[in-house]
């Protein structure tokens, strides 16, 4: 009468116990991300954001004074990277959180309230999914304007369909479970079933997905800023810094583009690894 729902795993009260780290990669990812967040907060507070030049001569290679060197305007690359970290990491987390909230709500709605609602939601997600994420984000920012907020919203819209689809799919599975049938027999209303039974049991899937979305969001946002439609100068942002540093690399000064690139890689990879770890833990 029902499909099998994974009941062997539950986000139970002893969640803390089950989240014990046992995996060196995941451990490293947590430490790295934690470190980046701490530095992103502390460094700009203590040392400033290096929006203006500190050295008269630009393109100084990495040294003790300037661990990541300086860019062509004489700005310390390390300080700029940390200033950028605030934006990018915050963005990753923000996009993940917003897509999770809105996406799960829409997905659950789509799965619960019948064909008509489902059709509408599905067709809209179909349209959004027809565009590659970057293109969609570009279109949106191009029409709205070059602004970090617009770019962030564009990234949210690009990823929303994925969360909606996944939530809907899992919600439909949960809805066909015997315990939902039992709830109906006990007189539970459709809305209450969605909120008390379906959503909580379906949630772990989009939750894991959102960590991966955080990772991809950082990459997309960096790409948008690289193309000039995201964060505007002089605010530092990894993608923007890479764009500025490309020319310098060709001239032999590799550091203004390399270090922000490295930051993007480390941040995105950390989120991915954490996402994989979460996925394994919750199964």
């Amino acid at each position, binding site marked *: 009468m029902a499909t099998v729902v994974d009941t062997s795993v539950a986000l139970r009260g002893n969640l803390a116990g089950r989240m014990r780290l046992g995996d060196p990669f995941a451990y490293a990812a947590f430490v790295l991300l934690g470190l980046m967040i701490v530095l992103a907060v502390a460094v700009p507070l203590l040392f400033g954001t290096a929006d203006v030049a500190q050295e008269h001569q630009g393109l100084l290679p990495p040294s003790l004074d300037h661990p990541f060197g300086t860019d062509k305007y004489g700005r310390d690359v390390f300080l700029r990277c940390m200033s950028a970290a605030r934006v990018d990491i915050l963005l990753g987390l923000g996009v993940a959180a917003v897509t999770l909230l809105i996406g799960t709500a829409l997905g659950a709605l789509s799965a619960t309230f019948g064909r008509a609602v489902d059709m509408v939601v599905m067709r809209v997600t179909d349209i959004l999914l027809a565009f590659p994420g970057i293109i969609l984000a570009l279109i949106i920012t191009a029409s709205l304007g070059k602004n970090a907020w617009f770019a962030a919203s564009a990234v949210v819209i690009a990823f929303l369909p994925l969360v909606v689809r996944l939530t809907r799919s899992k919600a439909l599975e949960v809805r066909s479970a015997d*315990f939902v049938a039992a709830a109906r027999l006990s007189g539970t209303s459709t809305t209450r079933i969605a909120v008390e039974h379906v959503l909580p049991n379906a949630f772990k899937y989009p939750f894991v997905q959102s960590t991966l979305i955080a990772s991809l969001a950082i990459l997309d946002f960096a790409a948008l800023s690289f193309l000039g439609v995201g964060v505007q100068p002089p605010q530092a942002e990894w993608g923007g810094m890479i764009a500025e540093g490309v020319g310098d690399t060709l001239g032999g000064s590799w550091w203004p583009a390399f270090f922000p690139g490295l930051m993007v890689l480390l941040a995105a990879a950390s989120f991915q690894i954490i996402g994989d770890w979460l996925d394994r833990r919750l199964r």
Partner: protein
Amino acid sequence: MELRLDDITVVYRRRGVETRAVWGVSLRARRGETLALVGESGSGKTTMAKVAAGLQKATTGAVSWQGPATGPAGQRVQMVFQHPVQSLNPLWRVDRSVREPLRRAGVPQREATRRVTEMTGRVGLDPALLDRYPGELSGGQAQRVAIARALVGGPEIVILDEPTASLDQTVRARILALLADLQSSTGAGYLLISHDISTVRRLATRIAVMYRGRIVETGPASMILDAPRHPYTSALIAAVPVADPRVPWEGRRARAAPESPCPAGGQCEEHGQGLHAVGTDHLVACTSATIH
């Protein structure tokens, strides 16, 4: 009070293909007795259970309650499912699951707790287990929880959908004994869906045999089990291997027979499949059965 299903037909439409799961089936489920719906896969018995529970709409036919009301209108029908652990919300402690029908019915907290405690005792469940999650319980324990949940609100009819099919042999016997016991103490009626003759033998007062969406025979349990008239019923009972090597086993056929509308090779599909009486309260849908 009696749950009536009259002339139920359920047709599924999938990609333009129509499948008739149930065809013109009528049933009555009453308090204090067990009606067993017996059949193999494709018989439509599961669909009938869903219709009776109100979880599925019949394409044609009526579901109604007849007789004097013995309680509030809500939750007259409850259900116990085949896979006990999956019939409980994995994120809820089982106490909450048992309590839920009472909460939905607006029973105040204190009274609800009293009833839950009482029912827990009656189903033979250790009260300490109420704090556990379904994944921490064995099949037998989880089924006891599910039974408690089903009965705590005092339903008229409980649908038992293969209640012991996924339980171990030794646990099965105890759960069946429990169900029989609870029927006499609560007075609830059971609609038992099963393909297992021994389970049916243990619990059924009356039996209705289904084959490919239709009822082929119905009557008192003893009559159906010991003196079946429809060839399909006979074949079904004979096919069950007896747990005794000394008892000769009938029902063997090495070759795969093609699916026919009539298990006896007749033409009931064309010749009108009404049920004919072959004894007091004993109906058979087979023209050849009435001949002898």
